[in-house]
C-alpha cells in the first residue's frame, strides 16, 4: 500500500468509520425515507434480480423492493446490526475497497452517500471501480445488457441548502453531527421539524448538527466534543463533488454512464461496465 493510501485509510478510520460506529442508532433514527432516484432505480429491477448495497448503513434501501435479493455491506458493525432485519435481504460487515463478492456476479448495485467519504482521489476512483466490478458485464454486442450501478454523492453546488456551499467552495470538508443528550426532551415542535428534515435529503439531515443553537462552532471543534448540556458533536469527513466529477471517476474506473443527474444537493449516476 502506498504511503498516501495508508494515510487515507487511517484518516477515514478516525473521521468516518469511528464516527458512524458511535452515532449509529441516532443516525439511523433520522434515515427512513428513500431518495426518489434510488427508489425508482430499485423498483425498476426485475423480480429475482441480485443486487449489492455498498455502504448500506441502516439498510433503509433494503425495504424498497422485496422481489429482488440484495446483499448489503457496511463498515460499521452497529449500522449492520440495525440493517439486519430486512427480509429477504442480508447484510455483512465489509470495507468498500475490499468487498467479499465474486466479481461480475450482480445484476445491480447501489452505493448511496458513501464514495464521498473516501479521502483521496485515488481511493474514490478505486471505490467506484470496486462497485463496477460487481456487475455482470454486457453480453457481446448487446448494449445496455450488463448490470447497472447507481452511485450517489453529495454535491458541492448546493447554494440553496442551509450550508450554502457552491462552485468554488472548498471540496474537502468536515461536517458536524450533533447527538443530543438522551435525557433532553425534544419539544413537539422540534420533532416535527426533524421529520421534515429527514424527508429533505442528506443536506437537510446533516442540518441536524445545527439543531438547538445556531452557534457555528463547527470549524474548530474537535470530535467528540461535550457541550455543557451533554450534547456531543462528531465531525465526519466529506469530499463534495463538483459537476461532472462523479462521471469522470466512473469513466476512469472503466465504466460507462447510462444516465446521470442532480437531485436535492446530490450528484448521481447510473453506470455499467464497458
Amino acid at each position, binding site marked *: 500500500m502506498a504511503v498516501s493510501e495508508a494515510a487515507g485509510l487511517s484518516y477515514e478510520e478516525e473521521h468516518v468509520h469511528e464516527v458512524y460506529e458511535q452515532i449509529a442508532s441516532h443516525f439511523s433514527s433520522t434515515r427512513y425515507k428513500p431518495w426518489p432516484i434510488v427508489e425508482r432505480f430499485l423498483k425498476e429491477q426485475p*423480480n429475482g434480480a*441480485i443486487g449489492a448495497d455498498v455502504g448500506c448503513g441502516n439498510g433503509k434501501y433494503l425495504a424498497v423492493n422485496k422481489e429482488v435479493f440484495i446483499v448489503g455491506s457496511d463498515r460499521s458493525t452497529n449500522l449492520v446490526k440495525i440493517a439486519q432485519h430486512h427480509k429477504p435481504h442480508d447484510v455483512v460487515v465489509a470495507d468498500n475497497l475490499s468487498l467479499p463478492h*465474486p466479481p461480475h456476479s450482480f445484476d445491480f448495485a447501489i452505493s448511496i452517500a458513501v464514495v464521498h467519504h473516501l479521502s483521496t482521489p485515488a481511493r474514490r476512483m478505486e471505490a467506484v471501480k470496486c462497485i463496477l466490478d460487481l456487475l455482470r458485464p454486457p453480453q457481446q454486442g448487446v448494449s445496455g445488457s450488463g448490470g447497472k450501478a447507481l452511485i450517489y454523492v453529495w454535491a458541492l453546488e448546493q447554494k440553496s441548502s442551509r450550508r450554502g456551499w457552491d462552485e468554488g467552495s472548498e471540496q474537502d470538508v468536515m461536517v458536524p453531527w450533533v447527538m443530543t443528550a438522551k435525557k433532553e426532551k425534544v419539544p413537539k415542535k422540534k420533532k416535527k421539524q426533524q421529520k421534515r428534515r429527514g424527508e429533505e435529503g442528506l443536506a437537510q439531515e446533516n442540518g441536524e448538527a445545527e439543531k438547538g443553537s445556531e452557534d457555528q462552532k463547527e470549524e474548530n471543534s474537535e470530535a467528540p466534543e461535550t457541550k455543557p448540556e451533554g450534547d456531543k458533536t462528531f465531525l465526519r469527513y466529506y469530499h463534495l463533488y463538483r459537476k461532472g466529477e462523479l462521471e469522470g471517476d466512473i469513466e476512469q474506473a472503466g465504466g460507462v454512464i447510462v444516465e446521470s443527474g442532480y437531485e436535492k444537493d446530490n450528484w448521481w449516476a447510473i453506470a455499467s461496465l464497458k
Partner: protein
Amino acid sequence: MKLLTLNFLTCAIKTCKTNASSFPLHPRDAELEIQEADVNLPFLKNILPRLMWEELRTICKELGLPDLPPTPPTPTDLISGGNSTDTTEGRTQAEQEPSQTAKDLHRVLLETCIQEGKLVCGCCGHEYAVKEGVANFLLPGHLV
C-alpha cells in the same frame, strides 16, 4: 446470515477472488438457527438460475444438513402438482402453491442462518468470524 448469501460471497482478499478455490467460503464451527419467513414462490423461481448448485450442496454437506438433490430443481418442480399438467394449466401465478421441494429449498436458503462460527477461504485459509448472525469481512491491515 442466510445460506443463500453464501452464494454471493467470497474471500475479501483481491488475489483470492480470481482463484476458483476461494468460492464458496466454508463454514466452520457453525451454530445454525432457523428464522422462519414466508415462502415467496415467484422469488424462489426467479433466483433458481443464479444458484451455484454444486457449491450449495457442498455447504449443506459441510454443515451436516440433509443432502440437496444432485441436480437443481426446475421451476415446475417448485409448484405443487407441477408435474401433472392438467392441474396447473390456466392457473395464475398467484394461485400456485409451493411444492415440498420449494418449501425445502426455502428452508435451506432463506430460513437456515449461521448465527455464530467462521467462514474459511479455501484459497488462503483466512477465517472470517460470524457473530450474532453477521459475518465480518474487515481485513487486518497487512492483508488489505
